[in-house]
């Protein structure tokens, strides 16, 4: 039905239920907040026409097959122009396959697995890849503290921490020579007791601990480390970048560093505006998922706008949107400036954040590739 | 009139097993119910113990109480009606002694419990020998002894016995019926269900014959023993 393509539909493939409902919520909220802005402006201006926008939000239950079904449904039934999500690689990789097969633009704001976008011209991502962030952290620590013995603690069953841990290890050993990662310990998703691993880490004589985990685990890891008498610095990655980290962790986390996309405290411009709006609306400081989703959806919007007009033929329009997306240069996102590589991965800068003694995320340093 | 059963209907999954059974027992009597396989003997006892619900319209009174108003456990603990269920149904994961102790769950008379326990052991000395053994590992007959002993321990204003002789050796059976007689003399009413009609009638004072869920005949034991119909159908010619 071409005639009825009067509104622009954008699909959101989010894990509303399942293991990571918080991620789903962030995705949904960011997208809805964006939609409000668009509706206030009377629609999305494409060429000479203003189109109303509709979000099609599908729950992928944090399951691969549901993510695949959701994508198929949104593409073939709902006729979406582009899809935001899924967030976790476990869903983003298979769902990306579907989007690519149907030649529909999909951007996963949060998935760091190379397979998500690899050989898939229609699939993009909104975050930086592990091969970039790993060395960033390694270099920063070397420069800042001059340590040479590192310990890593990560979740082996989860994509993101595992990838990042590997790249960090590689980078660290390139700088400090083989064997300089003296403890490389893992656990499994949903574990809450890390005492055995931390005891091993403490015993290994590591000078610091790198743990690219999510905020809920960070709190437990840091506290347990301190209870076991581990007093060296603990360093993290962008997954620490949630207001919850400090809320759950408390003073134990004060003074620690992590690399991320943006620093909430002392943020400026669009970033600050986003954070304030989000906090006002939903009552808490947005985490990285929300911020990345926000950027991704704006990227999609920009690509749509740049097509200069929609034909009403979904297939053609989808192609046009994807082509415009690939061409985007220096997009000013709240999580940094982005340009896409051949594979659809963004090149962007990272910042190092320090958790202040008041528990705020302070900008410390910027690191660009 | 200690127990009066009137117009008792019972159904299992919509299939009627009892079609209006009525009878009554005086305190201190020994009464037996005889009948063929599947006639509804066990069901009658179960209905008195409230293990199966009676259909509407039934009247069950025990010493002036409306039985239907009592939960199954209260029938035992408050009214003192004990029941030796069909198929023994022991708690195999408890020892012999624990099975007997559990039966006194609701009793508050330590003296009485002690006396009753001694009595059970004197009727069935084998149980005393085997008191620490799991009930499940007892031989068939030993289990039957425990089932009777256990029922006695729960209380004994009235005992409902469902085929207590099953699996007992002849000698054992004799001594058990002797003991039951004695228990009866001490004031326990006994309602006995037996396949072995001759045995039952010899033991009881009165009897009822049940057929297809209905009482078809009643009378004193001698009368029934000499009834030609009963003789033909239930006494093996």
């Amino acid at each position, binding site marked *: 039905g071409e005639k009825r393509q009067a509104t622009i539909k954008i699909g959101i493939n989010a894990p509303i239920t399942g293991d990571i409902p918080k991620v789903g919520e962030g995705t949904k909220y960011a997208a809805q907040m964006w939609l409000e802005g668009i509706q206030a402006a009377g629609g999305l201006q494409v060429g000479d026409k203003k189109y109303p926008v509709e979000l099609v939000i599908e729950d992928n239950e944090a399951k691969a097959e549901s993510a695949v079904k959701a994508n198929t449904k949104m593409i073939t039934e709902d006729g979406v122009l582009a899809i935001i999500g899924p967030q976790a690689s476990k869903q983003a990789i298979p769902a990306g396959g579907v989007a690519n097969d149907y030649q529909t633009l999909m951007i996963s704001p949060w998935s760091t697995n190379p397979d998500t976008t690899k050989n898939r011209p229609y699939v993009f991502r909104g975050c930086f890849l592990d091969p970039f962030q790993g060395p960033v952290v390694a270099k920063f620590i070397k420069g800042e503290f001059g340590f040479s013995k590192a310990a890593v603690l990560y979740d082996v069953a989860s994509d993101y921490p595992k990838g990042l841990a590997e790249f960090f290890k590689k980078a660290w050993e390139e700088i400090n020579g083989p064997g300089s990662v003296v403890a490389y310990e893992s656990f499994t998703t949903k574990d809450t007791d890390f005492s055995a*691993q931390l005891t091993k880490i403490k015993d290994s004589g590591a000078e610091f601990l790198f743990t690219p985990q999510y905020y809920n685990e960070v709190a437990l890891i840091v506290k347990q480390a301190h209870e076991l008498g581990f007093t060296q610095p603990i360093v993290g990655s962008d997954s620490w970048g949630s207001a919850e980290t400090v809320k759950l962790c408390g003073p134990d986390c004060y003074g620690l560093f992590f690399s991320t996309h943006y620093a909430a405290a002392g943020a400026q411009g669009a970033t600050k505006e986003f954070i304030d709006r989000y906090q006002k609306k939903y009552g808490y400081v947005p985490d990285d998922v929300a911020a990345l989703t926000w950027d991704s959806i704006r990227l999609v919007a920009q690509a749509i706008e740049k097509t200069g007009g929609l034909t009403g033929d979904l297939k053609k329009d989808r192609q046009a949107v994807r082509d415009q997306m690939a061409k985007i240069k220096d997009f000013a996102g709240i999580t940094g400036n982005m340009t896409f590589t051949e594979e659809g991965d963004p090149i962007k800068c990272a910042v190092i954040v320090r958790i202040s003694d008041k528990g705020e995320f302070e900008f410390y340093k910027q690191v660009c590739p | 009139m200690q127990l009066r059963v009137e117009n008792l209907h019972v159904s299992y999954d919509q299939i009627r097993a009892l079609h209006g059974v009525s009878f009554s027992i005086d305190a201190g009597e020994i009464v037996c119910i005889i009948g063929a396989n599947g006639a509804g003997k066990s069901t009658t006892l179960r209905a008195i113990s*409230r293990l199966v619900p009676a259909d509407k319209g039934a009247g069950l009174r025990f010493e002036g109480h409306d039985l239907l108003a009592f939960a199954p456990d209260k029938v035992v603990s408050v009214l003192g009606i004990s029941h030796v269920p069909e198929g023994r149904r022991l708690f195999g994961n408890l020892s012999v002694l624990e099975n007997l102790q559990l039966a006194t769950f609701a009793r508050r008379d330590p003296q009485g419990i002690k006396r009753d326990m001694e009595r059970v052991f004197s009727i069935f000395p084998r149980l005393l020998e085997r008191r620490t053994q799991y009930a499940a590992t007892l031989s068939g007959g030993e289990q039957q002894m425990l089932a009777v002993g256990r029922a006695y321990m729960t209380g004994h204003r009235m005992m409902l016995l469902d085929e207590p002789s099953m699996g007992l050796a002849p000698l054992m059976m004799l001594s058990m019926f002797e003991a039951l007689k004695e228990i009866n003399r001490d004031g326990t009413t006994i309602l006995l269900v037996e396949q072995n009609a001759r045995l039952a009638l010899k033991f009881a004072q009165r009897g009822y014959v049940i057929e297809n869920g209905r009482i078809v005949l009643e009378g004193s034991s001698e009368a029934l023993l000499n009834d030609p119909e009963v003789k033909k159908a239930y006494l093996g010619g």
Partner: protein
Amino acid sequence: MAFFMQNVINALQWGSFYALIALGYSMVYSILMLFNFTHGDIFMTGAYIGLGVATALLALVAALGWSLPGWLLLVATIIISMFITSLLGVLVERVGYRPLRSAPRASAAITGLMIGIILEYGNLALLGTQRLSFPELIQTTTYSVGSVYFTNKKIFIVVVALLLMVGLHQFIQKSRWGMAMRAMSYDFPIVPLMGVSLNLIAPLTFAIGSALAAAGGILYGMAYPVLDPFMGILLGWKSFVAAILGGRGSILGAALAGFLLGFIEIFTTMVFPSTFRDLIAYSIILLILTFRPYGFFGQAHSTQLRL
């Protein structure tokens, strides 16, 4: 040596949670012969109730301007929460298990699983998706002997787990209530003939089991102060492993197996690369059960009815 001792302490704490949850599990499980898949989620709910009670108490105390010692508040929290959670247990029994008393056990297990899911998502719907942190009722004090570290909380937790274990064991093995519960697991329809009310024993069992879960939840919240609605799932399943590894119906066995499970997990991490932890830990459990098919204290055929 210090390294080893430290791990022993780690294992004791971690094992005590498995033990605690397995205790409650084993209560309901071995008594009603039901896989009580709800237990993990009751544990979770207990932790949340504990959090609610603790927060309320703290607010009340602050409002009244009293200054009570932390341990008093902790004890009050535990007691109140145990009570509230036991009511939940009774409700679960009433809704999910009683109607299925004579159904195949697996069916009741499935309703349990479903009630668990309702508790999880009910929590999510009620409290939102953010994780909550458990308030610090007592100050953590860290002690060290040489380079072995432990905290006051750890000692408290292990002691409570051991006490409950011994107490419950006595209760089940020696009291007539315990006897009735065991009998019920064997052949419930006949239990009323002993003058025992099923509708008393079953809720009681659930109440005790759930109260234990609440105690476990609060202690857990103290040790791992990040609560989320799904925290009970994995722990629940693993305690299920412990409860049965100990031998069906054996309270002591369940608790010991809980500690053992903790030790296995911690020590495999200690000795092997930690990525192999689950692989090795569960292979050990599989082997144990292959060679001790009825757990540590389980009775094999001896309690099944004679042929």
